[in-house]
């Protein structure tokens, strides 16, 4: 008989794995399609706005679309097929905020939705802000060092 440690190792080696190559190809095409859509929107928005505003409008449109599709229960079906293809663009972030919001509405807006809206996106927000701050400090230190030398 196995010890529990040996068994866990054996299971890790033997259990069926996610089809990484297939998932990567699907993610590449769906993710690429979302980005191409973003680019097309960008060109359209350029007719009404300057470059910076158009970029912003593209992001807002994609977030709104992902949030809307999440609400309709369609986004998770696309994501089940696309995986990282929908997760990596800003669409994934929108979904990760909207889905717990829908899910926890039943427990009330204050005690349900409020604290739980960032259960999925929380780590992304926390560590991106933190790494942004860290990067800022390093950049500042480098600038100071440059001036001194």
């Amino acid at each position, binding site marked *: *008989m*196995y010890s*529990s440690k040996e*068994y866990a190792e054996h*299971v890790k080696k033997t259990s069926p794995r*996610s089809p990484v190559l297939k998932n990567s190809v699907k993610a590449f095409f769906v993710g690429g399609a979302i980005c191409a859509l973003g680019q097309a929107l960008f060109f359209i928005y350029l007719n009404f706005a300057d470059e910076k505003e158009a970029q912003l409008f593209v992001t807002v449109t994609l977030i709104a679309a992902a949030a809307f599709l999440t609400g309709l229960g369609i986004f*998770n079906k*696309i994501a089940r097929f696309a995986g990282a293809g*929908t997760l990596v663009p800003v669409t994934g972030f929108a*979904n990760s905020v909207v889905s717990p919001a829908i899910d926890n509405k039943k427990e009330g807006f204050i005690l349900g939705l409020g604290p739980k809206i960032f259960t999925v996106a929380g780590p992304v927000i926390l560590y991106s802000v933190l790494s942004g701050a860290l990067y800022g400090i390093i950049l500042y230190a480098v600038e100071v060092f440059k001036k001194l030398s």
Partner: protein
Amino acid sequence: MRKTKILKNPPAFISYASAAGYEEHRGPLGCKFDFHDETDLFGSDSWEKAEGELAHTVLSLALKKGGISEQDVEVLFAGDLQNQCVASSSGLYNFGIPYLGLYGACSTCTEALLLSSLYLETSEGDTIAAAVTSSHYCAAERQFRTPLEYGGQRTPTAQWTATAAGAFLLGRKESGVRITEIMPGKMIDSGICDASNMGAAMAPAAADSVFALFSDEKHDISSFDRIVTGDLGDTGSFFLHELLSKDGIDIRDKHEDCGLLLYDRNAQDVHSGASGCGCSASVLAAHYLPMLEKRELKKILFMSTGALMSPSSVQQRIPIFGICPAVVIESD
């Protein structure tokens, strides 16, 4: 050595019922359930309430089918997957039956049958005990995994919590289908901390119970028509067969897993198969008991498998403990 307990007054199934949700009704056993709801809401406005309603519905059906009043039921053993087993309490309180709440993860169905049998062993006359277990995909998903609308992919070893329930009324009967032997399961440390591979985490517990049972001279694999495990799924069944082969036991000809019967894995995206307290309960009530009643099967070993863990225990890398109680069900 661990042995089964042979019941002196083997209780019979007086009545039983099953109920299921949309995905389960689409599966191969779909037409056999007594009740199903396409919306999975069972007339409620939240998933948690829906599971309570599901448990309520299935016990009502079992009482109705058996022509039994709730006042005639002396005790109710019930459990589910929600925190503090709230689906069982909220769904079943208004029957007014004395209640004993159980938690054995997905093994709760066999645990409830085992305890009902033990209760009846010490009772006289026409005492009736009820066993009810339920699970709901949406309630379990919210509690154990991610929000329902969250877009992500699952591993091939992950299992799909069944939206299903089974209710069983046990008591005295001249002839019929009986629970003749019972054996509680040992908690086995699988060493696995991956909640997406519960089948593999439960397989050592199932292997331990099968091994204990067939190490006993009075049991012979050939005397059973089926050896039914709860919800090992495809991955867990593979590891069960592998673990048993090391002990020189081969049950593959007789083995069926409720987790593999509930859905059509080629047509339904359920990965390794079904799981949940309602999985083995609904399959027993909808599939095996009618077959035993018609004498298409004479004797089965029924062993629901449970993965004992919580979202916090998994995050703290506490290994998942498997458990697998067993009951022998025979028709006479």
